[in-house]
């Protein structure tokens, strides 16, 4: 379901598809490209070395589960009008995926999150309310030539640079492609604890992820999209609110994104060649505070010890498949 590959302590990361045997990343997605743009040291810890927090944040867990449930509703919607049986299937899947099942005994333990807003109850509430909100959605997911819904669409394209004869790639997954108001759009779902204000939607342009999706939807699919729809959800302690906004990009903006991506990718190669990933100290307190700030705050001689103690090694691989068919 995810692209994280667990590694036992003290062991090197297993070879990942997106990396050469020398450790050079050749295939990037918004996570790894975003990490590199944020801070070279952050990129080194999170992507190159694969140090991840021991426990998945409830926000990430919640987001993955909600995506999975709505993906199932999208697939059902293409086959015919949605019915409560589709909603029940999505809810049952989410409840099971959220919890843990003992592989030996089969005993199931429901997800018990202490987070006020991101927990099992709010997850199922969001799925039910989303279903009711968009039961007659005017956004229609496209049906691919093979009859399947244009949902969790994997893409990859060369960015226009090579290393040792191999193309650097940009890859990812679009939540869906669909028709809205007579035009085709890509759609990406977002959840937040804050209000769905203009400031919230403004963060998606420019955006490593959304601008990249916009470019991908035009390069990879034969039906050119007019932009990206941000399908947003505000998750409260006892409620959910929904909102949408369209993020268009001009050809020049998309070209600019690609140039910037190529520049950053070149930087990642330079960092590896020099075996040095500098800190961007200006990013330490952004994004709610960097995961590795506690590490970077320590003397370099002891950082590895704390990394091994406080994190787990999980290799992020943009080329690992994702989605229902993965």
């Amino acid at each position, binding site marked *: 379901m995810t692209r994280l590959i667990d590694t036992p302590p003290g062991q090197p990361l297993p070879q990942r598809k997106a990396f050469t045997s020398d450790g050079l990343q050749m295939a990037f997605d918004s996570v790894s490209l975003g990490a590199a743009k944020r801070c070279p040291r952050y990129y080194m810890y999170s992507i190159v070395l694969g140090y991840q927090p021991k*426990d998945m944040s409830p926000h990430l867990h919640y987001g993955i589960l909600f995506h999975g449930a709505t993906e199932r509703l999208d697939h059902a919607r293409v086959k015919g009008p949605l019915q*409560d*049986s589709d*909603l*029940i299937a999505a*809810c*049952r*899947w989410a*409840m*099971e995926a959220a*919890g*843990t099942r003992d592989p030996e005994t089969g005993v*199931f*333990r*429901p997800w*018990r999150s202490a987070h006020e807003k991101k927990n*099992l*109850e709010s997850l*199922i*509430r969001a799925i*039910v*309310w989303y279903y*009711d909100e968009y039961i007659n959605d005017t956004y229609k997911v496209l049906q691919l030539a093979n009859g399947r819904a244009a949902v969790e669409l994997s893409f990859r394209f060369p960015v226009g640079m090579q290393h040792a004869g191999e193309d650097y790639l940009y890859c990812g997954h679009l939540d869906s492609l669909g028709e809205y108001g007579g035009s085709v759009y890509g759609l990406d779902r977002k959840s937040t604890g804050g209000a769905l204000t203009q400031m919230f939607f403004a963060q998606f342009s420019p955006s490593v992820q959304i601008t990249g999706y916009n470019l991908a939807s035009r390069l990879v699919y034969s039906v050119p999209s007019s932009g990206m729809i941000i399908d947003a959800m505000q998750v409260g*302690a*006892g*409620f959910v609110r929904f909102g949408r906004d369209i993020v268009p990009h001009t050809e020049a903006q998309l070209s600019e994104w690609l140039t910037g991506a190529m520049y950053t990718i070149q930087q990642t190669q330079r960092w590896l060649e020099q075996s040095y990933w500098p800190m961007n100290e200006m990013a330490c307190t952004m994004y709610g505070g960097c995961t590795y700030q506690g590490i970077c705050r320590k003397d370099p001689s002891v950082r590895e010890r704390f990394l091994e103690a406080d994190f787990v090694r999980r290799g992020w691989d943009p080329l690992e498949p994702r989605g229902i068919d993965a």
Partner: protein
Amino acid sequence: MTQTLRDISTLFFSTDPLEITDEEFEQVILPHFRAQRAKMLTTEATGARAPATKRISAPATLQLKDLDLTKLKL
């Protein structure tokens, strides 16, 4: 014979989702959340602030053995 439906606390805290019946989804879980939504939409339509929602609390029969203590730090 009509099967007794379990309450929402039991369904959320103590039940394997694969064992929750379609009837329990239709008559317990979905109505619970749809009632909340109806209340919120009705209240917000008047311009008033959305009412607080009572959290689903653990059933009184929940025992220590039902809790996942693998990550408990003492």
